[in-house]
């Protein structure tokens, strides 16, 4: 159990103290010359004083006797998702119960601080017992959310002080990217990817799976023609072929752009980054569902390029989300160009580049990669999941 690290006292408004003090003095001065009224004067003056003294003492001692018995907070959550936060306070005193305890938590993330409540009430905590207050918290900013310190305020009616016990312990919650649900036709990103690096499609082997259809190109085996799709087209000379792949091969690279903007529109760029991060996370989940192994590459900082080999395992996807949770606009154009070139040169690698720029750059147009601009993200996104 954690004791309060400090007790913050907020004194009652001075005007209230002044008015009451003046009236007490007036009543005393008026009553002292009359011995017959002594009992009356004593009662009239003592009652408010005793009430205030009692309420003040109880407020202070109760706040001191409070302990945190437990904090229920998850270690990670998704942006746009809410989680339940619970604070259990125990009353370590022996005599009086804690009445009307108001509890509050401080939230902070990347320069944004919320420390003004809402105040959750625990009506009564009896001596030796515990009470719990609960909040629902929605974190919308990706990254690290700090929950704490917690405060428990006690102010009995008539008290001259508001005693607030502050518990300094802080809990970190990693806010993972928001969960996107993508459209089913996101498969189209995979169609034609083998050709991207100059690899020619042959007949599928036993380990390969159907991944999609694309237009017929000279050299394709006629056995692979997708008859149904080809018959549906209006042009009788247009054919579609089926594509197959081995899901266990690490030949799909996903590169995320983290380079800051050149034009200075940082807000819009940040907005695009957030969408791109969530989109990449969703895309990797889709690929994992298809048992594909993906190489995820992005620049984390100056000379810091992170490469993750994502097998279709939950542990790998968790690793990716933890990495994405910390990403920021810290890349640079030169490193990004080198990364793209490196991925393209990998034998047989199909590269999907999630860019933050509205248009493909000239150097990217020359590379055999699929570039997704911010305009494509809404196309493939069906909905944002609110949990």
């Amino acid at each position, binding site marked *: 159990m954690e004791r309060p690290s400090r007790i913050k006292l907020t004194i009652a408004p001075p*005007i209230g103290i002044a008015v009451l003090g003046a009236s007490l003095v007036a009543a005393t001065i*008026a009553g002292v010359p*009359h011995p017959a009224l002594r009992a009356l004067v004593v009662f009239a003056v003592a009652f408010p004083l005793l009430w205030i003294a009692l309420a003040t003492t109880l407020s202070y001692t109760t706040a001191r006797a409070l302990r945190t018995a437990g904090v229920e907070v998850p270690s990670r959550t998704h942006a746009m998702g809410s989680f339940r936060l619970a604070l259990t306070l125990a009353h370590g005193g022996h005599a009086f119960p804690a009445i009307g305890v108001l509890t509050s938590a401080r939230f902070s993330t990347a320069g944004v601080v919320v420390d003004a*409540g809402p105040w959750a009430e625990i009506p009564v905590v009896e001596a030796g017992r515990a009470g719990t207050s609960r909040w629902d*918290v929605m974190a919308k900013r990706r990254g690290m959310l700090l929950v704490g310190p917690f405060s428990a305020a006690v102010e009995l009616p008539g008290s001259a002080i508001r005693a607030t016990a502050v518990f300094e312990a802080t809990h970190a919650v990693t806010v993972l990217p928001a969960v996107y649900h993508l459209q089913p036709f996101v498969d189209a990103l995979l169609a034609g990817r083998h050709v991207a690096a100059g690899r020619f499609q042959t007949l599928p082997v036993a380990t390969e799976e159907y991944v999609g259809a694309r237009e017929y190109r000279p050299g394709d085996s006629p056995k692979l023609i997708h008859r149904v799709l080809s018959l549906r087209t209006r042009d009788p000379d247009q054919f579609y072929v089926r594509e197959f792949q081995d899901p266990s091969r690490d030949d799909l690279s996903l590169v995320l752009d983290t380079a800051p903007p050149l034009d200075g529109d940082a807000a819009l760029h940040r907005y695009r980054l*957030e969408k791109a991060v969530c989109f990449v996370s969703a895309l990797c989940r889709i690929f994992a569902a298809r048992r594909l192994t993906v190489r995820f590459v992005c620049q984390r900082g100056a000379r810091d390029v992170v490469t993750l080999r994502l097998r279709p395992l939950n542990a790998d996807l968790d690793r990716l989300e933890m990495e994405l949770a910390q990403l920021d606009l810290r890349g640079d154009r030169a490193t990004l160009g080198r990364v793209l070139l490196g991925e393209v040169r990998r034998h047989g690698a199909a590269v999907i580049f999630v860019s933050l720029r509205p248009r493909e750059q000239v150097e990217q147009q020359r590379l055999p990669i699929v570039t997704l601009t911010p305009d494509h993200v809404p196309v493939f996104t069906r909905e944002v999941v609110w949990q």
Partner: protein
Amino acid sequence: MINWLRRVDPAFYHKEPHLLRTQARIARYTEEAQAEVRCSVLTADRMLHAATTIVALSAYAAATGVGALDPRGDWPTVWAFAVLAVAAPSALPWWPRPDEGAWWRHALIGSALITIPAVWSRIDPAVLSIALLVGATLYVARGRGRVALLVLAVGVLFGVRMPAHPLFVAPLVGVLAAGAGILGVRLIARVWRLRPQVVTWSAFATLLVACAYTFAFDAPAVALRVPAEIAAIAVAYLCVCIMAGRIRRAELMARPDGVLSIPQSIVPLLDRSHDHAIICWLA
């Protein structure tokens, strides 16, 4: 790629904020908004009104020595106390708007305050005249007239105790008392919306001032009924404690059930208009 771009909904970026905003709770999180809600809770609290009325009536009983003050001799004082006991609670900010029958009720209560203590001694035309006067003034004084009546009553209370003729001194003292009262009320009014418990202290102070007045000017009469006087003050004090509890209840009821972080200039995530990083509400 061209096909994908064709699927872009041009209104996506405009629709998205509205879709997302529907999920977010907007809380009453400004101090002023909380004060408004608190005031409305107090206005609807019948127990608070009853406690306030009992405080006023008990204060009247204590100030007049539980009937020890003779309405025939000290009629201006008794009149002023009766008027203050009936009219002052309705001037409080949480008192509901008076209905049609309120003026009649006030007049009857004011008259009863004079008449009932006289039942134990003697009801004569003089007592009835004072009761009628109290009833008439409470019935006639409405709206801003009530404020003037309160000022006049305070002026009379202090004016009759001055050595000079009350007719000349009362208006002067009334103006001074009104000035002091308005100053005090404004100071407290500025604080009470944000720290409503200051009302508890002010109620204690009002009762003590009434007691001080009685001790200073009517000690011989009050000395005859000290136990009854203590009982009246005790009832008033206990009702002040009840008021404090009700005000605390209003504070809890009016507290915000959620807060949003301060909106940021940099859009952090998906909805560009409702850009709060953290939203927290009571479970």
